[in-house]
């Protein structure tokens, strides 16, 4: 029997906050065989990152670790500083979360990849510059980057390329274990698929053990042999990926799995993961009503630093009707946010018109202000979309005060209740930092609802939220449509979201709408190449999706 590469035995980590100890990890046991791959799933605050970082003791001073962490049979918690330094990177390395910020912006990527090589020379004696350069070139080739890019600065690379550089850094000293902390968060679907494929290939080729942390079960299932699901500092379920994905036992695993629905699965159509049942579809629903909000041949362009013209939105026609949810899908940089801002009148179009109920939207004055009451915005990150100094009441009352609505208090309470913050009094005098992410997003939605709009434009409304909250917010949008007939334009990079709640999908690519149609048409029978590649990039599909592809 071989010694496991990594063995965690009864691991407990507590953080000292003020005078009290807050447990982050409680009694975790994990084993990873050499060359094995293990995914750790969980929501933010479940302790998954703490577990991963404890392996290299990369935790803040306030953390207290008890239990055993055996790396190759050697207890990490008992290591002296010098030994720990040698183990870091040479034996186990980390692909950090958020490649955007984990690279030094003022140093060339080649130098940054070389840094661990110079600190931990593989043969024990310092490498010559030529040897380092050769190794850096080799590493860049391994992660599918041309070796010539070694002289590039991080800002000259795309998000996916930066993540590749991070992986190259982790591989530099040929470690036996790589810990990847949310390696694909904030990456586009297609780039995510590429990075995952790369990581899987390298790990298999070089027999490296991999621990991957993610909140997205399907990402883990696509990469790892085994999955452990963490909840509240404990491992609630562990097993082979197919089992955990296919027949989850713990209810939290089921919630995580349901939060990322499979496109094409009829069970999750119009059924976002929520604990409160949805109202049934009104029987008299008319499929296609009058277009409420319409863009006609809309064009918006910016000039970059060199003065070159960039067409962010290049001739878009889009309509949103009453009682309809339209999903605008595309990767970052496709111009979908610019399109939304233009529809809201926050950005001036170069040409084309935005019509509301058939009439062009006025450019200013009282007409514009009246238009604002009809079309409202929900932003991506609720934390920054709320003024930290304003209470929930003030944030929701902001719109009614601007428009001088009568009986402000009743309006605010109605809006809070409609956004499912019940009872409204309980939340009214809280500050944003006293709320959870999902509650904050509800406050933003309530702020929009307070004006009783007929269309809501939601820009990635769930992208910064936890998996379980995600379903609740989507259910809220669907419920508002069914109960109030509220139309919504939901901007997203997530096809599963469209499948969950939308009636129609518009796919945006490089400023143009390449495909528009009902959800079933576009997602089950894609016509355009780009839509096909988006669907193909989704990690871990079900049988149903594969039948569509073949």
């Amino acid at each position, binding site marked *: 029997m071989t010694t496991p590469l990594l063995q965690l035995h009864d691991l407990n980590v507590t953080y000292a906050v003020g005078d009290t100890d807050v447990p982050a990890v409680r009694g975790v046991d994990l084993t990873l065989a050499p060359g094995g791959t293990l995914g750790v799933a969980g929501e933010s605050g479940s302790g998954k990152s703490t577990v991963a970082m404890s392996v290299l003791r990369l935790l803040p001073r306030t953390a207290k670790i008890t239990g055993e962490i055996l790396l190759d049979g050697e207890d990490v918690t008992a290591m002296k500083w010098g030994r720990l330094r040698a183990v870091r990177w040479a034996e186990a390395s980390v692909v950090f979360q958020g490649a955007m910020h984990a690279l030094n912006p003022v140093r060339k990527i080649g130098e940054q990849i070389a840094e661990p090589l110079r600190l931990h020379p593989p043969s024990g004696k310092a490498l010559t510059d030529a040897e380092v350069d050769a190794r850096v070139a080799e590493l860049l080739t391994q992660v599918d980057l041309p070796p010539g890019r070694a002289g590039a600065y991080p800002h000259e690379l795309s998000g996916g390329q930066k993540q590749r550089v991070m992986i190259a850094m982790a591989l530099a000293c040929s470690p036996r274990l790589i810990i990847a902390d949310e390696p694909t968060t904030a990456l586009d679907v297609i780039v995510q698929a590429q990075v995952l494929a790369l990581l899987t290939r390298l790990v298999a080729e070089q027999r490296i053990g991999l621990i991957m942390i993610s909140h997205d079960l399907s990402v883990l299932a696509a990469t790892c042999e085994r999955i452990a699901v963490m909840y509240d500092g404990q491992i609630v379920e562990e097993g082979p990926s197919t089992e955990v994905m296919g027949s989850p036992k713990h209810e939290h695993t089921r919630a995580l799995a349901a939060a990322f629905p499979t496109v094409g699965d009829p069970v999750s159509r119009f059924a976002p993961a929520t604990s409160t049942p949805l109202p049934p579809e009104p029987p008299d629903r008319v499929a296609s009503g009058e277009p409420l909000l319409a863009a006609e041949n809309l064009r918006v362009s910016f000039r970059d630093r060199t003065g070159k013209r960039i067409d962010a939105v290049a001739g878009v026609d889009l309509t949103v009707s009453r009682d309809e949810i339209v999903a605008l899908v595309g990767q970052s940089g496709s111009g979908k946010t610019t399109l939304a801002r233009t529809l809201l009148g926050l950005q001036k179009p170069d040409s084309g018109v935005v019509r509301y109920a058939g009439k062009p939207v006025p450019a200013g004055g009282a007409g514009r202000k009246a238009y604002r009451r009809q079309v409202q915005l929900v932003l991506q990150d609720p934390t920054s979309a709320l003024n930290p100094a304003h209470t929930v009441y003030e944030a929701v009352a902001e*719109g009614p005060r601007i428009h001088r609505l009568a009986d402000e208090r009743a309006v605010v309470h109605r809006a809070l209740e409609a956004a499912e913050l019940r009872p409204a009094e309980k939340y009214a005098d809280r500050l944003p930092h006293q709320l959870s992410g999902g509650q904050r997003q509800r406050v933003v939605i309530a*702020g929009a609802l307070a004006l009783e709009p007929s269309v809501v434009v939601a820009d990635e409304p769930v992208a910064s939220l936890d998996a379980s909250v995600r379903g609740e917010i989507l259910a809220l949008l669907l419920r508002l449509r069914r109960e109030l007939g509220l139309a919504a334009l939901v901007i997203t990079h997530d096809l599963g979201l469209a499948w969950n709640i939308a009636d129609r999908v518009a796919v945006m690519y490089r400023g143009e709408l390449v495909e528009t149609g009902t959800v079933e048409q576009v997602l089950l029978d894609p016509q355009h190449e780009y839509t096909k590649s988006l669907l193909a990039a989704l990690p871990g599909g079900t049988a149903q999706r594969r039948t569509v592809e073949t």
Partner: protein
Amino acid sequence: MTTAETPRQIAWARRRASLARTWREFAAQRTALAGLVLLGATVLVALLLPLISDESGLNVTKATGQPLSPPTGEFWLGTDNFGRSVLLMTVWGTRISLLVGFSAALLSVVIGTLIGITAAHFGGWVSATLLRFTDFFLVLPSLILAIALSAVLPKGVGTIIVAIGLTAWPSTARLVRAQTLTIESRPYIERAHALGGGHLHVIGRHVLPGVMPLVLANTTLVVGNAVIADATLSFLGVGDPNSVTWGLVLESALNNGAISRGAWWNVLPPGIAIVLVVLFFTLVGRGLETVFNPRLKK
């Protein structure tokens, strides 16, 4: 309704709580607290002076002492060349110095805040024009400008206030502009626009409350500078000749040969008074800055 409190009451309760928190953070800094206590005492003395001392001692014709007498039991800090008590003059000088300091700082901070917020909020050519205007005042030696202004305008305390106020605002404008830009880049400003909020709404509800703490901290520092500028202008003889100020005491000490005769007691008391008052303001200002500016924490 289960709660009898109206949102307004809740808002006030919260404001009180936040004020208490600010006070705790401020009071935790011993130097800042000491500065505040000493500053408070100084202001109190300046306000109560007419009750506790006799102004007539400042009148040259009613002076009782010998000219340039060194410190004695009767005149603790000696007398000037007219036989007036230097202690009395120094204490009375506090009134004018503080008056000029506060008023000039207020004037310059109001101008600076207005220009800073306007430049940052509207951007484009408005910003460009205002910033070039600010740069112009920034590169111009403010003392020379102040001298020119007070030479042209009729002599008096008001002129000194205007002269200092009109020359000290550019640094405030720069600070406020930078802070406004960071606030306006936050998504909640976009949300306010989408809700239909106009310029006044965004500035009044989001920007102004956001920059006020920094402005307040800046004001206390500007007061110190204004006190120095006031003393300088008086010393250079462009101030109000009828009011007793620290600068004027220093000027007369120089012009009437007190310094050449070695009468140190005519120079040191007003000089030390200037240093102390500026020090108090700086201590308080630094303390406020530490509380309000998140970048200075830890």
